[in-house]
């Protein structure tokens, strides 16, 4: 079932584009600007290429997959009676949900690998210094955004509504995380709010891990908190038909 879901994912040009090509594309477009590889006081002596750019690309990845691809697919499966059809077989529909989570998580990892690979090889980006931290941060961030996607799937009545809600959630979250406008150019109050959002916390933590620092405990706790809270709500309200 996981294999089938993978094939279906890759057959959909939209989800592949959003999750695999867009993040690395953004990285490349901004990465070829000469200034980004110069160390800057603004980023604590690191270059933008080693801090804000990869973290923005990864935030884009987990945001797109969690907020668009997962909820749109799940609500479509519900709308078309696929979950209901599955409920009449010995395999419960929750297996499909699990397969979807595995697929989206794997795509997040693949996209991360692509961002690191292309960044390091083609753009001269430094490889992340804190691999273990990065793995932990990625796991927590992915979990938080997938939980967000599940709650969208739970409340959306149709896949069109799910896509709409995905947009509605994505833009403010991406803005607050400093993906649309660099965080450092946002007013201080907005920065503080942003740091409390799952995507904002994720981005800061990725940035820290990349330069080899320990991410702030508060940031990790924020991501874990969102995962638990949204996950529990989704489990409560998700409907199979």
């Amino acid at each position, binding site marked *: *079932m996981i294999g089938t879901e993978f094939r279906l994912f890759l057959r959909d040009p939209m989800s592949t584009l959003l999750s695999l090509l867009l993040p690395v594309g953004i990285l490349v477009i901004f990465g070829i600007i000469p200034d980004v590889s110069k160390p800057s006081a603004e980023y604590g002596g690191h270059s933008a290429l080693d801090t804000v750019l990869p973290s923005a690309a990864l935030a884009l990845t987990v945001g797109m997959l969690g907020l668009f691809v997962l909820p749109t697919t799940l609500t*479509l*499966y519900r709308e*078309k*009676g696929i979950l*209901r*059809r599955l*409920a*009449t077989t*010995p395999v419960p529909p929750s297996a499909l949900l699990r397969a979807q989570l595995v697929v989206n998580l794997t795509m997040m990892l693949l996209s991360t690998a692509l961002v690191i690979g292309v960044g390091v090889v083609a753009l001269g980006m430094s490889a992340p210094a804190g691999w273990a931290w990065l793995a932990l941060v990625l796991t927590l961030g992915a979990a938080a955004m997938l939980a967000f996607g599940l709650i969208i799937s739970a409340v959306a009545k149709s896949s069109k509504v799910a896509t709409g809600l995905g947009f509605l959630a994505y833009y403010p979250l991406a803005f607050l995380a400093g993906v649309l406008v660099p965080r450092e150019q946002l007013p201080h109050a907005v920065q503080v709010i942003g740091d409390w959002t799952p995507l904002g916390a994720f981005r800061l933590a990725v940035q820290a891990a990349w330069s080899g620092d320990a991410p702030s405990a508060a940031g990790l706790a924020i991501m874990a908190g969102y995962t638990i809270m949204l996950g529990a709500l989704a489990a409560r309200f998700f409907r199979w038909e």
Partner: protein
Amino acid sequence: MQNVIEVRGLRKRYGAQHAVRDVTFEVGAGEIFGIVGPNGAGKTTTVECVVGLREPDAGTVRVLGLDRAQDARELRERVGIQLQSSELPAKLTVGEALRLYTSFYRKPADWRVLLTDWGLADKERTAFGKLSGGQKQRLSIALALAGTPEVVILDELTTGLDPQARREAWGFVERLRAGGVTVVLVSHFMEEVERLCDRVAVISAGRIVAVDTPAGLVRRAGGDQVVRFRPTSPLDDALLTALPEVRSVERAGPQVTVSGTGNLPGAVTAVLARHGIVAAELRIEQASLDDAYATLTTEREKS
């Protein structure tokens, strides 16, 4: 005959509306059992309760002797269902769907056999979204058979199919029975039910109004038989009205129309023969299941 499905006093309500009020029937092993009724009569709700997709408000349902709550998994292993309006992901191919669904079961059918059996061999690599209505329907039946079920429930099997595809589907259902599978067929085509079903339950407004063989339903609805002919020599109506089978005799020009019940054609032709009258242009018309269905379902609505 051993009962494969037993439904007793089934009730299901959605809000204030009673979808199913008090439904009781049983289906024997190897039978093709029809469930017919107008739209919204409770047919689909009934089968959804039978397969465990819905929780009945009252009543008991046993399928293959299993309890739908306690043995849910076992039930799903052994009962195949083709649902009305359920789709597959548009980009899933026919072959992938069959492989996936057969992988769900303990006793899987050979997906390649299903593929050829249901005339989909040349569609193995075709995506679900690109299939025609008839092909989708055939795939949906093939998927219902993925676990070599003992009971198959087909909900609106032929709705949306053209007459040619419909006849094909009927052939498939007959093949299922030949393979010893018990079939429950939800339908609103009387022709289909008459052709396929051993017994039929007529549901109207959430209640069963009759369970019988198709011929039995026709009889039960008081369906008259009609014999029409043109006598070659003068005929006294009294000869006919004296017969216990005859209810009325009408004449239109040279043509005589006799209505009645029982073995009407036999009685009429016997009396004509005894009086040396030849019946030209003899035609016998039997009330159809369509008529019986109309009578049974409207009677219930009136009462």
